């Protein structure tokens, strides 16, 4: 079974600064996908960024980038030039690839979440 761990329950950052959210995961699969989702106070789950495990290059989406360390099973999210609108709960999530079998197939497993507050 897969597990996803976010060890930082809460983080805060000043507007315009950079913050990094940590995530580690445990799996025996070799092919999988990792995600960061954002949940603002509106409750909507928003996909922020996606990483394919077989790609060594770290994914980037504008101010959001990841540091993917496959051997260490680590997948951190870096938010640059933080904005007030980045205030939200952030979830790291894992899903095995289509070539993996077992009971985890198609199941997106989430970490516990990190509450990020951006201060003006």
């Amino acid at each position, binding site marked *: 079974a897969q597990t996803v761990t976010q060890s930082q329950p809460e983080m805060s950052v000043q507007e315009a600064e950079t913050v990094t959210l940590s995530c580690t995961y445990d799996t025996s699969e070799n092919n999988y*996908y990792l*995600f960061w*989702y954002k*949940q603002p106070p*509106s*409750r*909507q*789950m928003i*996909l922020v960024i*996606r990483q*394919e495990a077989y790609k060594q290059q770290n994914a980037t989406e504008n101010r959001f980038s990841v540091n993917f360390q496959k051997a260490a099973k680590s997948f951190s999210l870096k938010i640059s030039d933080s904005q007030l609108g980045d205030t939200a*709960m952030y*979830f790291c999530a894992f*899903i095995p*690839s*289509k070539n993996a079998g077992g*009971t985890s*197939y*198609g*199941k*997106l*497993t*989430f970490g*516990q*979440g990190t509450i990020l507050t951006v201060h003006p």
Partner: protein
Amino acid sequence: DTAVSQTPKYLVTQMGNDKSIKCEQNLGHDTMYWYKQDSKKFLKIMFSYNNKELIINETVPNRFSPKSPDKAHLNLHINSLELGDSAVYFCASSPRLQGASLGYTFGSGTRLTVV
């Protein structure tokens, strides 16, 4: 608008009642899911349907019964509601089971409060 829509957004009901939450997606996706987010914000999968077929059924009380009349709809019916059922329930979809690697598209959630 293309989306995953859930109704109702808020539901307050008494213990022992039976209630349903409806979900519809117009994205043309084959696979739909129900997730429960508890008071600590932890998200856990409950069910998954692929083209109307039940694929994932986690350890969920029998009082919860999903129904998928077609691949665009996945409803959740809950019998004999208990205080512990209070949570936010999210519906989600993905292009197909194999396409879940692209991530899910989530509905806006239904906050269920049992009193």
